[in-house]
């Protein structure tokens, strides 16, 4: 039993944080909102150079072949920076799905081009109502008849844009015909893709929540009323302390869920749903504390907070909303002979691979 990340994993997260602190600043985000695609192709290329697109690509196709435990800290950092590009969904949900399909030219080409940063991918699945970033994607992965894994490009795909409250989310209602079959009868692969989608949304939510707290601490330290920084008032302190409690107790839940997915543990679904709920609730708590402590400024575009809040609100509903996940945890917890008890928290890992 050793519930710690390795130094390599922590160092990798640090390098990504450093990169994003330089290349994905609030100023970059404000400028990007005004652009046509709302996506930064140069930044995408640099993310690929850092190895982030190749995270789950098998090593023989030019990737790193790493695991969910390695990536969870990266997803958290992407959330904290409110990274507009859907790196997390593409690299850590779509790619592992493709990687689990049988080797074939179309699949291998897609994976190696993705690892190089020359191809972007989008996903259409019953677990998601809308497709993200169809406008910059070169290919769409979707579920065909019999839960097959399909790949479609070009004229097979028609997309109509939907407007999200998050100005940096690009959503599409997509219909698709034709396409190429990569794997037949793949319900288990789609189920695993859904778990990854929910898990890494949770990780991003945890990062978003922490950053909303940090932004608000900075604001409350500067803004003065009654001759003092508002952050010196207990009413403000207690809002932020409560939000910090929520985030600090969501993080370990998210990390355990990453471990459960990486090891194919029997309680994976409950672990992921718990993570999505805990991180979503922490992000909601943090967003409410943040807007309240920013006062009227928090209700405007004048400060950057809104970009983080809106991303959080969007992700709370994506990859299974709170009620969906609550029902899954309830089915696990309240069922007959549920494996719950003080000695059973890690029991699913005793025989896990």
């Amino acid at each position, binding site marked *: 039993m050793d519930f710690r990340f390795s130094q390599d994993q922590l160092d990798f997260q640090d390098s990504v944080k450093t990169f994003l602190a330089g290349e994905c600043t609030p100023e970059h985000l404000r400028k990007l909102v005004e652009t046509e695609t709302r996506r930064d192709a140069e930044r995408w290329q640099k993310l690929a150079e850092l190895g982030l697109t190749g995270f789950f690509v098998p090593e023989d196709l030019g990737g790193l072949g790493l695991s969910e*435990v390695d990536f969870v800290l990266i997803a958290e950092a992407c959330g904290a920076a409110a990274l507009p590009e859907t790196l997390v969904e593409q690299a850590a949900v779509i790619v592992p799905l493709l990687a689990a399909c049988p080797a074939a030219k179309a699949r291998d080409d897609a994976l190696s081009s993705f690892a190089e940063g020359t191809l972007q991918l989008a996903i259409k699945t019953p677990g998601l109502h809308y497709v993200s970033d169809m406008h910059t994607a070169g290919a769409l992965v979707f579920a065909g008849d019999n839960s097959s894994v399909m790949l479609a490009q070009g004229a097979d795909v028609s997309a109509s844009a939907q407007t999200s409250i998050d100005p940096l989310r690009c959503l599409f209602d997509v219909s698709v015909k034709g396409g190429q079959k990569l794997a037949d009868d793949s319900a288990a692969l789609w189920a695993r893709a859904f778990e990854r989608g929910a898990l890494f949304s949770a990780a991003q939510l945890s990062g978003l929540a922490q950053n909303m707290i940090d932004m608000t601490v900075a604001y409350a330290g500067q803004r003065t009323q009654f001759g*003092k920084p508002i952050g010196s008032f207990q009413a403000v302190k207690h809002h932020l*302390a409560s939000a910090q409690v929520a985030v*600090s107790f969501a993080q370990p839940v998210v990390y355990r869920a990453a471990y459960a997915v990486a090891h194919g543990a029997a309680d994976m679904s409950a672990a992921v749903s718990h993570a999505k709920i805990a991180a979503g609730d922490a992000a909601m708590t943090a967003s409410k504390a943040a807007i309240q402590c920013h006062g009227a400024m928090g209700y405007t575009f004048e400060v950057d907070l809104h970009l983080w809040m809106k991303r959080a609100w969007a992700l709370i509903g994506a990859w299974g909303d709170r009620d969906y996940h609550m029902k899954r945890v309830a089915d696990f917890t309240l069922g007959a002979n549920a494996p719950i*008890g*003080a000695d059973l928290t890690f029991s699913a890992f005793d025989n896990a691979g």
Partner: protein
Amino acid sequence: MTMDLAFTDQERELRAEVRAWMSAHVPQMPLASMDTREGFEQHRDWERTLHSGRWSMVTWPEQLGGRGANLIEWLIFEEEYYRAGAPTRVNQNGIFLLGPTLMEYGTEAQKEKFLPRMAAGDDIWAQAWSEPGAGSDMAAIRTKAIRDGDHYVINGQKTWSTRAAFADWCFGLFRTDPDSQRHKGLSFVLVPLSTPGITVRPIPQLDGRTGFAEIFFDDVRVPAENLLGEEGGGWGVAMSTAGFERGLMLRSPARFQETARRLVALYNANKDKVSAATGERVVQAWMDAEAYCLNTYMTASRLIAGGSIGVEASLNKIFWSELDLAMHETAMGIMGAEAELMRETQSARAAGDWLGGFLFSLAGPIYAGTNEIQRNVIAERMLGLPR
């Protein structure tokens, strides 16, 4: 290293050993309340039984009657302890508060005098921190311990002193420099409660029992060798004690996971009459108890690897105390018209005395530093907000 959330063979063997021992030794019938003389002595006997199996202080070094268990092993022990439904520890103040402080600050003579008796349950310790004018503001302590030859002479009053009604000793902070202010001039002194001049007045709590008490000191003479640490350096010694208390070991996750498990059972037995909202609160309770467990395992892993615990202890205190209250509130709701029945009533005992737990859980956000103080600590020392 890489993250590994499976237990090692050695850890599994420890679990099996604890489980076997508990199943052979945990009393079949619940003990009387430790807030009665009879129950207190029953609980002391249980400490002696634990000690005979070297289970009373598992984290203490072997030469002191412990097992030198690391924090992960301690968590496993606690999981099995609560799983077995073993009695509440009357010696909590000794094991987790004074014991580690003695090991850090005590002289060899003090360690020899106090630790083995503490481990054996021969001495049960009470806390003596708060005073009528010094609650959250502990630096306002006024009770004096003035040096007179080779003794200290103590005058004043302590209050909310847990276990004091029946305990053998108390430990706490006293003002040894009568002209000092605030954190300076305080000393950490160990006082036998049988010393002439001490009057202990038990205070009835919400449930009518007397878990804590006032202690009046009237020219109480205590040998100077009962000073722990430096004279005037008591605040630093106490903060280390308080750190242990608020930190990892005051409330092990197993306690709350066991409550959550019982809550799920209570819900399942009443499923037909309660609302869906109640079901969701039950699931939330289970999730939060799990989160507390996971967070504790992360902290324990970090500490074993050489890390330390600081301000995050305040996060723990808030989380478990609010969780405990929420769980009992939910249980009271499910109990409905039965909820008000005292534990003397058979049906209340049969249901697991949720009322007693509810009343106790209300104290959680207050003792060991109120949650308001903890939120200030988080805001100022963790987040860096201005004072």
